[in-house]
């Protein structure tokens, strides 16, 4: 029962946040008025009913009775079924409020960079709580511990655990555990004892009826760093990963300590401090071990189950995310069931399962999980902070004692700092990379307390703990102080201290390779030096994982995949996506943009991105090469035709009747096309190019595996289609062979069997690319002086020519390009900056270019019937390459200026011979 839901908040906020302040009072003022217009403004009515429902048993009954009188007699067309929908309705409204609140916060960019969202949410909660208090003269709800622990916290912890950077976490596990266990114990005891001392000294008022045990209990619950608060604040601060993982890991792993201390003290308080036996202390220690290790084990067991289950979801991809959510959540609940540390359980379930699950499930499921988890966590966080704010307004639960509050604030801060410094001093003797003073400052300052402490203090039994109200008030102040004040100031502090920030950078392939090599090196050196250190054991674990765990938990198809290869592919995909993002959805533009966006264009980037000319992944580079250096206009025409051919024939299928299925996600038209091309590209790379028409069936079989890895649900039919395409177009049933023969790189190899085109792409690029690069660099070095009027980037000119096969519509790009000449100079990063102007220009040209294509897109060119107008003159035999034919004066000029370097000359000479 979600009684905590605040009745008036929904409508009040909907107007209230829009016009903060008094604008929201009218609807609220309506609340106390009796007068339920049944079909009145739904928001007000719902809020009213919610108020009635929740206004305490007596009142609710009264109102309810009154309510029912109105319903008396007869059939009515519309009925007011509030009771029926109440709970889900209020939940939905709450989520809506929270989400709208977030949107509103982020309207002001400058504001949100200064003020953390958590602060804003708490303030919003305070406002809402205040409104309700004014309206109702009574605070109705606060953060309900059951709701918090059963629903809100797990969503956040689940997200944190599942997406925990495992390597980083385990690299720093020693430090994390130390801070979590020793640090929390230290904080708890010191705070407890010192508060007791303060009480004895009379600093804390006499009306606070608490003895040592009460203070220790309070110390235990107030000392734990809170994962929700830490996440909320640190995610906006972006400190470096090590610092973050230590603080955040601590906040997660200290759960066991907090749970045990809390329970132990509660039982001590119940029996009374005097009656505690020595054995009870030992029981406490034993309990700690059981709670922490047991929780971890439960989590790991569920991680294994989860990994194992996802092994078999191949046929039911759609429920993959569900399994993840369910099992991770079950890990949490199971741990709660046995009163083990639920947070530990969930965290380790997430960390443990992540690797296997991610490998097993489809890309779509991965995305789904990611977004759903983030979504839920974000919502939960929002609700938690809003409720913290609302709860704070409730004066009835409070009892203020300045001494207690100020002492607690001082103590937790001081002891946190002392604990961190002390432990770091010890830890630094063992750490490879010591934590320096700045790190320690941030760690001390980042010890935020939050909703966990609040929920625990609310859970206290007022009968047993006489000073509960004081503790509640103090906890609220502490939470507010840490989240609001420290959360607000930590960003400037981090800036001021120049704490190394996290870079949002993804590792490059070099880093991936070398870091793996480093791991091996370190392991080997440890073995040689006879040290059984961290790397030794990590290596042992990896072997165990490889030999047993992965065999058990991974699909056969992914089991043999190398991690490095996976990482490499991820990088490729990421690059591809970024290219696509940069340029927009137009396929043509993607095709074009590759040339500008990458200086050393990567073969494999092509392999991944090339949405248009997938089959020619490397060939396109060659083609470009030809144009830059030799400028063969004929090839341009042919290529363009070819592009259209591929586009129309392969990408655009006749529209199928889309049918609804609950079990399979129908792919969108565009999506499917992209997918196909993507798969095709990956396949091409992964296959060893042995494939030919004759081996087609074999290939098909082997490709099935490939298909699983990449991308989701392509129906058999699509796959077959994609496969067809993946062979050369001449392998496709009715594609005219003439075209292929005109393509320079194909014609070069000769007309023979269709398989050649595939072979050709393999043969040519490896050596030509090299040559191409060399020629590019030499061209650039020649034309680098900024005074030069010609485009420095050969790709640019090539591009513009690619864009304009028809001389009429073609505008020489020299004007736009020349402005960028200076950036185009050999500086390596220059090619990545991508002037708006140029890009626009490019896109314009592309659009122009696409128009004729558009009409034919729906008409597969593979069909024998072709709109005649679409075919460029079908058989212009490739004209001999000659400089006189170039259309682009700039390139022409350049090629004159830049004497073709040996490599390009080489190329030049090779081409014609092949032709």
């Amino acid at each position, binding site marked *: 029962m979600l009684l905590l839901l605040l009745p008036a908040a929904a409508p009040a906020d909907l107007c209230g946040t829009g016009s903060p302040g008094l604008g929201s009072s009218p609807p609220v003022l309506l609340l106390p008025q009796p007068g339920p217009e049944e079909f009145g403004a739904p928001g007000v009515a719902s809020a009213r009913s919610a108020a009635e429902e929740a206004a305490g048993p007596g009142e609710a009954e009264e109102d309810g009775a009154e309510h029912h009188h109105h319903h008396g007699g007869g059939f009515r067309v519309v009925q007011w079924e509030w009771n029926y929908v109440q709970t889900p309705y209020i939940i939905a409204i709450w989520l809506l409020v929270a989400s709208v609140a977030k949107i509103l916060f982020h309207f002001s960019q400058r504001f949100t960079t200064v003020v953390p969202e958590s602060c804003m949410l708490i303030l919003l909660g305070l406002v809402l709580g205040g409104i309700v208090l004014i309206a109702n003269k009574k605070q109705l709800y606060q953060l309900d511990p059951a709701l918090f622990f059963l629903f809100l916290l797990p969503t956040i912890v689940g997200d944190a655990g599942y997406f925990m950077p495992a390597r980083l976490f385990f690299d720093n596990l020693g430090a994390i555990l130390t801070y979590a266990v020793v640090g929390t114990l230290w904080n708890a005891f010191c705070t407890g004892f010192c508060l007791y001392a303060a009480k004895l000294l009379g600093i804390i008022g006499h009306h606070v009826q608490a003895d040592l045990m009460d203070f220790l209990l309070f110390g235990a619950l107030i000392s734990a760093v809170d994962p929700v608060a830490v996440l909320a604040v640190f995610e906006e601060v972006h400190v470096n990963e090590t610092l973050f993982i230590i603080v955040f890991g601590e906040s997660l792993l200290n759960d066991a300590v907090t749970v045990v201390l809390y329970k132990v003290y509660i039982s001590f308080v119940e029996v009374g401090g005097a009656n505690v036996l020595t054995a009870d202390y030992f029981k406490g220690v034993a309990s700690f071990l059981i709670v922490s290790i047991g929780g971890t084990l439960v989590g790991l067991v569920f991680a294994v189950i989860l990994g194992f289950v996802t092994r078999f979801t191949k046929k039911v991809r759609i429920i993959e995310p569900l399994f993840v959510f369910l099992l991770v959540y079950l890990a949490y609940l199971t741990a709660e069931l046995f009163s083990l540390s639920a947070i530990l359980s969930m965290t380790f379930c997430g960390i443990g399962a992540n690797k296997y699950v991610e490998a097993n499930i489809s890309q779509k499921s991965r995305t789904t999980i990611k977004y759903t988890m983030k979504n839920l966590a974000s919502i939960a966080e929002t609700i938690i902070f809003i409720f913290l704010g609302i709860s704070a307004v409730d004066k009835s639960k409070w009892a203020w004692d300045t001494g207690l509050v100020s002492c607690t604030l001082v103590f937790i801060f001081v002891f946190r700092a002392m604990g961190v410094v002390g432990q770091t001093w010890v830890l630094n003797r063992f750490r*490879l990379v*010591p934590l320096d003073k700045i790190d320690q400052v941030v760690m001390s300052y980042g010890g935020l307390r939050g909703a966990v402490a609040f929920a625990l203090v609310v859970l206290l039994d007022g009968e047993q703990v006489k000073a509960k109200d004081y503790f509640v008030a103090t906890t609220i102040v502490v939470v507010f102080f840490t989240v609001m004040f420290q959360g607000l100031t930590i960003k400037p502090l981090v800036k001021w201290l120049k704490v190394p920030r996290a870079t949002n950078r993804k590792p490059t392939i070099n*880093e991936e390779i070398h870091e793996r*090599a480093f791991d091996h090196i*370190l392991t080997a050196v440890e073995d040689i030096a*006879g040290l059984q250190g961290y790397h030794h054991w990590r290596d042992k674990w990896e072997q165990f994982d490889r030999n047993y765990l992965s065999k058990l938990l991974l699909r056969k198809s992914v089991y043999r995949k190398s991690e*490095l290869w996976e990482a490499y592919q991820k990088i490729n995909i990421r690059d591809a996506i970024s290219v696509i993002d940069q340029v927009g959805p137009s396929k043509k533009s993607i095709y074009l943009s590759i040339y500008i966006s990458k200086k050393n264009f*990567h073969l494999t980037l092509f392999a991944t991105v090339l949405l248009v000319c997938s089959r020619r992944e490397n060939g396109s580079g060659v083609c470009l090469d030809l144009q830059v250096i030799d400028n063969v206009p004929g090839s341009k025409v042919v290529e363009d035709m070819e592009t259209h051919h591929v586009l129309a024939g392969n990408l655009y299928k006749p529209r199928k009747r889309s049918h609804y299925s609950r079990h399979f996600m129908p792919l969108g038209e565009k999506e499917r096309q992209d997918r196909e091309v993507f798969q095709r590209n990956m396949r091409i790379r992964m296959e060893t*190019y042995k494939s030919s028409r004759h081996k087609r069936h074999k290939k098909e079989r082997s490709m099935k595996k490939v298909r699983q890895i990449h991308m989701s649900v392509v129906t058999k039919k699509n796959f077959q289609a994609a496969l067809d395409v993946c062979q050369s177009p001449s392998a496709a049933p009715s594609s005219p062979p003439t075209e292929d023969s005109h393509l320079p790189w194909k014609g070069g190899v000769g007309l023979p069997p269709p398989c050649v085109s595939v072979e050709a792409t393999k043969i040519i690029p490896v050596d030509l690319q090299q040559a191409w690069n060399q020629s590019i660099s030499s061209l650039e070095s020649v034309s680098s002086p900024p005074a030069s009027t010609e485009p420095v980037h050969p790709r640019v000119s090539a591009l513009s020519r690619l864009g304009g096969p028809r001389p009429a519509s073609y505008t020489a790009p020299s004007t736009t390009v020349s402005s960028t000449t200076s950036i185009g100079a050999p500086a390596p990063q220059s090619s990545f900056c991508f002037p708006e102007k140029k890009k626009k220009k490019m896109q314009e040209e592309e659009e122009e270019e696409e128009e004729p294509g558009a009409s034919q897109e729906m008409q597969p060119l593979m069909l024998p019937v072709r709109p005649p107008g679409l075919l460029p003159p079908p058989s212009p035999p490739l004209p001999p390459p000659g400089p006189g034919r170039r259309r682009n004066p700039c390139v022409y000029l350049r090629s004159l200026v830049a004497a073709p370097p040996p490599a390009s000359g080489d190329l030049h000479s090779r081409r014609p011979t092949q032709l």
Partner: protein
Amino acid sequence: MGSSSSNLNTIPNSQELMQETGFSAAHLLRLYERFEFLDKDNKGHLRPEDFEAVQELSTNPIGDIIIGSFFSPGQETVDFPSFVRILAHFRPAEKNRTRDGAQPEPANSSTGKLKFAFQLYDRDRDGKISREELLQVLRAMLEMQVTEEQLESMAERAIQEADLDEDDAISFDEFKKSLEKVNIDHKMSIHFMK
């Protein structure tokens, strides 16, 4: 420390070694014990076979390459000082070491560590990691998990990415640059126990 200092005398040039490598007496002693353990027939130097006798190294995919790096080119043996000097690369860097410019870069600086890693790749020691050399390491690391074609594309891409002067190979500077964002001190250090 009485016993260790007496033992320290058995190590030739121990003082100089400690000075040079920065290992403490205890470390050095421990390494000496290890050295003697590996040196089965008390030759006073190690041969590749002695390294290969280490059980765990056989499972290390690039174990051979690493063993090779202990031997300077053309040499079949490694004596204790060289052994220690190589291991010194993996000592964690001191945070606040005082360095005067005249002093050579210590082995455990991040440049020193990188140099060591670099020459693992650079088998022919020509100062460049060629495509072939990179492929060799990749092939060893990935074992049979990927096809040659995939390896090549990876090597290709790695070289493309790191190669700034476009000579189709990775020089040490390029190597260093490609790893400049990586915390080398962290990734290439071992905690030497007492």
